[in-house]
């Protein structure tokens, strides 16, 4: 094995290791949180970041050929599909849970949320101005 092969082996192993660590974090998060909408946050991380890290490591192992291109296609597809499936899952949870209010704050009207967000932003801005004035 030449020096280039060794470098490829080390960098690829680092990427695959990073991917496995991210999968482990995902599993820990899924067992640590108490409610589906919180767990989904941890699960979506593995769907995009974990599989990207693992497949980039495998792409470095395999070199430049059609296998690499197909693996890249898998990553790109998952970047589009994973947010959509997370969104559909959270809609399922919001539509079928009768006491959703026990787990999170619900805004019946979106305008109320908008107003609160604008007020919070204004507060933050004024605080920053005070801090800069001091």
């Amino acid at each position, binding site marked *: 094995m030449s020096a280039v092969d060794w470098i490829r082996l080390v960098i690829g192993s680092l990427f695959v290791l990073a991917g496995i660590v991210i999968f482990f974090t995902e599993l820990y998060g899924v067992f640590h949180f108490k409610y589906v909408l919180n767990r989904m946050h941890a699960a979506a991380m593995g769907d995009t970041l974990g599989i990207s890290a693992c497949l980039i490591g495998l792409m470095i192992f*395999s070199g430049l050929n059609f296998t690499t291109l197909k693996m890249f296609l*898998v990553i790109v597809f998952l970047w589009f599909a994973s947010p959509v499936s997370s969104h559909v899952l959270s809609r399922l949870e919001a539509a*079928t849970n009768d006491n959703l209010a026990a787990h999170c704050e619900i805004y019946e009207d979106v305008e109320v949320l908008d107003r609160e967000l604008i007020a919070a932003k204004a507060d933050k801005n004024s605080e920053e101005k005070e801090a800069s004035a001091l």
Partner: protein
Amino acid sequence: MEKEMIYHPLFILVLVVLSFMLLVCLIRAVKGPRVADRLMAVNMMGTMVMVMISVLALLFQESYLVDICLIYAMISFLSVVVISKVYIGIYEEQHHNQEHVEGGNTDERS
């Protein structure tokens, strides 16, 4: 020859670790108190299986296994969307029926 001596144990180690994680995911899918929990766990398992199939493609030097991985990604996405939509439909149908039955009962009482 030397290259294979290094890559094969590495790939097999990755496969073993991923299969243990897959089992833990299965526990979440069985335990999950709500339907969304189970669907999410199945989605996670799909992701891990995709990585395993890609590792197998490099281990056996068979390029067509990555095609299977791509199709697996598409089918797992489709299954999550379709099952969620079907379950929302079933839930709303049951709710509608319950309201109908309750309405019928009040009519009888009056």
